[in-house]
């Protein structure tokens, strides 16, 4: 094959992205980055929550005239998509949606369990319109079961999934701390399952329903503890930043405000490197720390020694010095650090996008580098209803008159309804 332009992996695939908030939209973005045509569909009466509940994350903190097009979180995870604002709360709006289903390959949704069914847009109904349609439903707990209709966020999923109980400072209560990992993980597996379903369709000729449980996705990350618990192994405990096997492991204060460096030592050889790194080679002969068991036992003493050293260094300097001696180390980075991070810069990780409403900004790029077909679109997040014309006229062949009527009847729009703007979602 010559070096002609290769098509993007998902070129020619059309996705209707009904996702809201994070998991669904993230899945849509991953598919868009891979070349799919992703159309984000929002109802003017209930656009994606994060357009409205933007938590003040606007350019320079200013909401501006149309805050729903300037919300940072929306702009971060809906890049590369087209956007249509179709009122799914109306029969007419749902009719348009059905017309789109007929010419699309995938529908992504992460509403709570009754919503699509209430709209008459459940899988059996979509399948009747288009037997090849793939409906990917990213539920918090799946569509079946006594808790399937329950509301959740990333943090609550971590709790009922089992991670939170194991997280927390030693000898303290389990952390109410959440970093909302279930959402990006849910979006990622959803995108993968969609691609798998597309292959299934190539074999069978039929679409499918993907029913995903974000809670299950969380528990799967703890599979070793799930099995270990049944093995009658020592019970898993909250260890703070320590580890069952590695010693020492921890997070140590550095010079500067709220500055920290983490490190981990897996064996005696690495312990020896650490002693050298902190300028105390004599510690290698210290009987208290000679084996991993002893290092566990005397972890507090080691922490004190390491803290005395780390306090005298800037966190990145500490990391570099430790790494120079082959010690696993990582500075605790905040968002400023990440944007300045030399590794991410060297990798060209950040994607700059020109957004007519929000300005020119850098956002996180794709999570994998494809050597022949680099992922990413470089295109901004659509404003609400930005591609209504493309969708209605180019894709669905509606006339100007029809489109004008739809606008007038509020079946289609370009702004959220007033109630929505006020937060009544």
């Amino acid at each position: 094959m010559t070096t002609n332009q290769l098509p993007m992996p998902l070129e020619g695939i059309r996705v209707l992205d009904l996702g809201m908030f994070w998991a669904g939209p993230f899945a849509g973005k991953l598919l868009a980055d891979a070349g799919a045509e992703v159309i984000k569909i929002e109802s003017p009466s209930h656009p994606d929550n994060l357009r409205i509940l933007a938590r003040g994350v606007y350019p320079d903190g200013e909401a501006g005239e149309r805050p729903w097009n300037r919300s940072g979180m929306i702009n971060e995870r809906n890049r590369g998509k087209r956007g249509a604002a179709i009122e799914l709360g109306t029969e007419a709006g749902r009719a348009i949606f059905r017309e789109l289903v007929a010419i699309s390959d995938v529908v992504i949704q992460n509403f709570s369990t009754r919503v699509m069914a209430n709209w008459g847009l459940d899988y059996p109904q979509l399948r009747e319109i288009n037997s090849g349609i793939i409906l990917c439903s990213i539920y918090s707990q799946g569509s079946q079961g006594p808790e399937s209709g329950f509301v959740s966020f990333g943090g609550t999923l971590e709790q009922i999934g089992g991670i939170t109980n194991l997280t927390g400072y030693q000898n303290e209560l389990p952390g109410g701390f959440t970093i909302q990992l279930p959402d990006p993980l849910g979006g990622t597996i959803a995108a993968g399952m969609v691609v798998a379903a597309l292959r299934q369709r190539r074999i069978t000729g039929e679409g499918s329903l993907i029913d995903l449980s974000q809670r299950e996705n969380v528990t799967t990350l703890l599979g070793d503890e799930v099995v270990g618990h049944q093995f009658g192994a020592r019970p898993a405990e909250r260890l703070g930043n320590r580890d069952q096997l590695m010693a020492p492991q921890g997070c140590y204060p550095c010079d500067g405000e709220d500055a920290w460096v983490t490190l981990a030592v897996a064996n005696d050889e690495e312990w020896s490197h650490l002693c050298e790194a902190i300028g105390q080679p004599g510690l290698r002969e210290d009987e208290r720390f000679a084996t991993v068991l002893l290092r566990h036992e005397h972890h507090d003493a080691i922490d004190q020694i390491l803290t005395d050293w780390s306090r005298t260094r800037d966190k990145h300097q500490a990391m570099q010095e430790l790494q120079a001696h082959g010690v696993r180390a990582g500075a605790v980075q905040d968002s400023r650090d990440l944007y300045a991070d030399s590794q991410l810069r060297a990798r060209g990780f950040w994607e700059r996008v020109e957004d007519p409403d929000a300005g020119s900004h850098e956002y996180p790029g794709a999570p994998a580098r494809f050597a022949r077909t680099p992922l990413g679109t470089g295109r901004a997040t659509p404003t609400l209803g930005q591609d209504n014309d493309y969708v209605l006229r180019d894709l669905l062949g509606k006339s100007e008159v029809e489109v004008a009527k739809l606008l007038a009847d509020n079946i289609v729009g370009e702004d959220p309804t007033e109630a929505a703007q006020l937060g009544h979602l």
Partner: protein
Amino acid sequence: MTRPLDGVTVIEAGEGIPAAYCCWMLGVLGADVIKVEAPAGDVTRRLGPFPHDVPDREQSALYLHLNRNKRSIVLDLESATGQELFRELVAGAAVLVEHGDPGWLKARGLGHESLAQSHPELVSTTITPFGQEGPYRDFAASEITLMALGGLMNIAGEIEREPLKLAGSPAHYSAGLFAFTSTLMALTLAEASGVGQLVDVSVLEGLTCSHFQDLVEFEYTGDVRRRGTGKMPIPTQDGFISFAVQAHHFPNFRRLILGADAAPDEASEDLINRDRQRLEGEMDNQILEWALQRTKYEAYFEGQTEAHIPAAFIAEMQDVLDSPQYEARGYFVELDHPDGESIKFPGLPAQMSGVEWEHRRAPRLGEHTIQILNELTDLTADEIAEVRAAGVI
């Protein structure tokens, strides 16, 4: 029964969590996954937990969980013979997924470019802590250091104390998930065009893609988000619960705790700019009283079904195993344990209509070496015996 990845052979190399997790999922989706292990076996065989804490390389829970639905072949990739056999295996495969030090396969003459010369449709997914190039490329890494660098520790824990890591190995699992999705995308293109490629997955980049708000907040406003004081979990009769009350949940929440007849509170009518944390704080005592009258599951269930608010309980491992929701979903997969009892393993978190997933136990070290060599190479029985006597398999 057709499965999405029928006919796809995957070679898994290296060791640890990410490639194994990715390939487990590919295996459940129907791929034929061949796990190439060094003679000493995957490191996860040595990490446990083990039955009754007795180390046994065939009984490590982490290994057993991550390596279901695969076959195992032992190949010593340090030897030229092992490398040549590896090439033969890859020649018959659509995908190679590996996790190891950056460039470890290339150093053994098994880099993507070399393999793809005679096999241009090959998709090679390589998972490393930081990617194949860059100043951190050869940095030593572990779960905690990656979470720290990826910005996720900074926002967890209490501001008055050190940042806190999440339990388990979420950074490595997350990389495995990104590898899963990326590999399938590259496979799609390879099957359509006959052209494969190298897919370079970095744990750090995956984590950096997984920030809810703080990255864009900094980019837009210059504010650097810090961790908070952390919400205390609420004690019940038998454990802890929490409520993640958003603005629009608040009226219901108030009614749940204070009762339907509680006097309306004007402040709670203003949806957007409310100070709900303060309002919640004022209800602390009543919340506690309410919770202590219930078990954690009851509190969770009631909060969700009566008030439709995001209530959660902090599940301990037994709660997870006994979950009626997981039972209804058929989420757990029972596999036989050599001791005789059957053990529940996590299943695939996604169902696909028209497909039933098949779940097979993880292989013993080198269990399928001969079978795989017979299937995918032209080695005679004699040659296999020789290669075995030389310690290559």
